[in-house]
């Protein structure tokens, strides 16, 4: 389900970001098309996570602009980005450790809950109906991610690979238009990576999420993604389909440390 070229969901235009004197991103432009899996790769410190933080409104770039659904986006907070349909997962899992898997995923539905505190406190009538409808969505996600057995387990007690899965579940619960995944497979073994790859592909194809992901496992990136943008020292050094990127001299140089 490749998207058409003109259907651009998000465009990053000449973005630069610095922290004090440190240039994290300099003059980077790329776009994310509706329906694609877009990978952002690069060596450590290349500015990948910073880039993701810019996209979801956590950082505001000093220069350049973000166009979201074709319109230039004003300075915004992450929760505003979330309200507009951008969900994300984090490099170092950011879940509520004391809450169960189900409750964590339910928090992803928070933005979809329309009833106010009064109704929710009453636990009757419209708030209850809403809760049931949202629970159903969460249960479908639990079924999709094959985590029924840990539905009622506090996530703090779960192994890392499963926590990553729960975090993906919470992001999916938002039914996002754009899903940002920061190293979804870090620290996983081969089998866990295969499972996670399958979930990412299926989330993209059948749940209709456009996905931008950062990942270090180049094999996985090349298999999963439709297009890859490569950053090095905050600059874009390549942006193409996986096959082209793989054979790009600059990319090989950046990864192998060859001077160029």
């Amino acid at each position, binding site marked *: 389900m490749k998207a058409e070229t003109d259907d651009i969901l998000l465009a990053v235009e000449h973005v630069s970001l610095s922290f004090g004197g440190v240039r994290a991103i300099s003059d980077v432009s790329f776009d994310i098309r509706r329906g694609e899996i877009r990978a952002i790769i690069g060596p450590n410190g290349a500015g990948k996570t910073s880039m993701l933080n810019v996209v979801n409104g956590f950082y505001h770039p000093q220069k350049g602009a973000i166009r979201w659904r074709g319109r230039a986006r004003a300075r915004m907070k992450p929760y505003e980005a979330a309200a507009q349909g951008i969900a994300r997962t984090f490099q170092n899992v950011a879940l509520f450790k004391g809450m169960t898997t*189900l409750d964590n995923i339910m928090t992803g539905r928070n933005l979809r809950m329309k009833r106010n505190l009064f109704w929710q406190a009453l636990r009757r009538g419209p708030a209850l109906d809403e809760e049931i409808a949202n*629970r*159903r969505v969460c*249960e*479908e996600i*639990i*079924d*999709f991610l*094959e985590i*029924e*057995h840990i*539905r*009622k387990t506090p996530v703090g007690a779960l192994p890392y690979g499963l926590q990553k899965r729960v975090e993906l579940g919470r992001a999916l619960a938002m039914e996002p238009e754009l899903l940002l995944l920061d190293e979804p497979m870090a620290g996983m073994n081969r089998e866990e990576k295969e499972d996670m790859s*399958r979930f990412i592909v*299926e989330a993209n194809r*059948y749940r209709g999420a456009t996905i931008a992901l950062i990942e270090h496992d180049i094999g996985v990136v090349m298999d999963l993604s439709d297009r890859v943008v490569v950053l090095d020292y905050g600059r874009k050094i390549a942006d193409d389909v996986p096959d082209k990127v793989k054979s790009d001299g600059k990319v090989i140089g950046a990864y192998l440390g060859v001077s160029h």
Partner: protein
Amino acid sequence: MATGGESPEAEDTFAKLLRAHATLRGTRPAFRHKDLGLWQTWTWAEVYDETRAIAQGLIGLGLKRGATIAIVGANRPRLYWSITAAQMIGAVPVPVYADAVADEIAAVLDHSEATIIVAQDQEQVDKILSVRDRLPRLAHLLYDEPRGLNEYAERGLAALAAIAAIGRAALADPAVARDLDRLIDGGRGSDPSVILYTSGTTGRSKGVVLSGERSIGAARCTVAFDRLTDQDEALAYLPLAWVGDHYLNYAQGYVAGFCIACPESAETAANDLREIGPTYHFAPPRAFEALLTRVQIRMEDSGAVKRWLYRAFMDVAGRWGEKIANGEPVPLNARMAYRLGDLLIYAPLKNALGLSRVRVAYTAGEAIGADLFAFYRSIGLNLKQLYGQTEAFLFVTAQTDRAVRSDAVGPPAPNVELRIADSGEVQFKSPGMFVGYFREDDKTRETMTDDGYVKTGDAGFFDPDGQLKIIDRAKDVGRLSGGQLFAPKYIENKLKFFPEIREAVAIGDGRDFVAAMINIELASVANWAERQAIAYASYQELAANPRVYAMIEKRVDAVNRALSLEPVMAGAQIRRFLILPKELDPDDGELTRTQKVRRGVIAERYASLIVGLNSGASEASISAEITYEDGRKGKLEATVRIVDLPPYPPARAPRPPARKANAA
């Protein structure tokens, strides 16, 4: 809809049974399945309706009377209904083990000659598609769970739901519905009802053909035996293709009309058990053991008061629980202490394990430790043992509620004729007895005796109170030179129930007496040695320690005493033993990868020790090559002491007969 309406007591096929329940108890729950976190329930009337739709759909695919259809997957309602749907048409369902690898599945599917396969999900579909070239007959592959299968464009692949929808649409025509009714009516009890493949632990798996009337007849016997009714409920979590599941859940459920609950997934089964709270339950010994370990670990982690209460009342339960359960006289204060313990510990514990509503529980499949068995009995769980076989359609023996022991499997089940052949082999005739092996008449003839008994391949004997004891595979049972029965595994298992003994090898076939080579369990003996302030530097040194020898001697002596109480086994007491200087290891080929002793290899490697055991020598030497974990070879040189033990005189008076009044 239903033309029947007769009572289920008269029906001779599962399709007719289902129809009768739909009329008689149409609104009672028949199946449950946890889906999306909620228990979904179908009544008997709904199940009948769904099953008819699937049956009509299968007719549309060309399934005919006598043809086979394979079912591959876990316990899910629609897979059970597919079984009944096939039976409605007179076709023969063949449930296949879902965890089998592609190669094994291909062999069974090919042998079964199935043209239609109902698979659970993408995993099973992928597996079957990967061996499709070996299944020339396969025309239709149906799946229950559509997830991940949307983009498959394989020939003959379709969703079971879609096929059922076509069937349902066709059934809207009264003429079609009447034709289906006629097919159900035309089903004969003597026709093959199902083919269950044996798990194949002893050779290639064989397809056991069972007929409807015999299957239902056997289930009726045990339903009456355990007083199962439509108020009962069971969690169907055992492999769908295993005779245990097909009997305990499917056949008994359809006969008694009780509710069959399917877990959400294999991983959630323990939790689903708690939510459903079944009244009828089966689990293999290792499952009960795992549960107990979990309880013990949790208790170790709990607070001091709880721990004290647990210990105090488990002590009460240990002393009186089994006696109360067996209806023996118990003093009033013990009864009151037990009642209090039930309130504080036993009932909450059973509740936490999901066992509080269980009326009847069975275990079978392997020897169960006496302590383990006593634990569950003592907290008031009606846990019993049975012995069965696929060829018998499960039940050969079963313990009655009031005569339960851990070391025997009970008297013959209702209407089962049981005998011990001269060779020591257990042979039976039972109501559920199989018709034959599918496409293997020679094997059928090998298994049947001339007078129509089935050979189990197991050796056993009857205890004085009439309970059967299984001792070993018949081919492994030998005799001493004096003619006494020698069952190595029986003796070895008795030794291995002691935590200090990891492995044991009994030698005696064709010899004057029984000798044993024992492997100590390093973890528990090391722990014991530490508390005894015994210093040692290696496994070999610990194994040769005189105090370790003395401790093991006591264990062997206890086994001898137990053997002396059993008239059949009293001649096979252990007269000499030694402790092996190294652990038996699969890397050295002494054990299989599944930790079973390889007698041939051991006889060869330890020949010098065996010679020593059989002579009068007080020690023997060994020199053997050993393989370290990293593949390096080393040499083992050791001299080990051999200990002589005086035998107990065989018990003359048989143990007091069990309370016959309570026996069925």
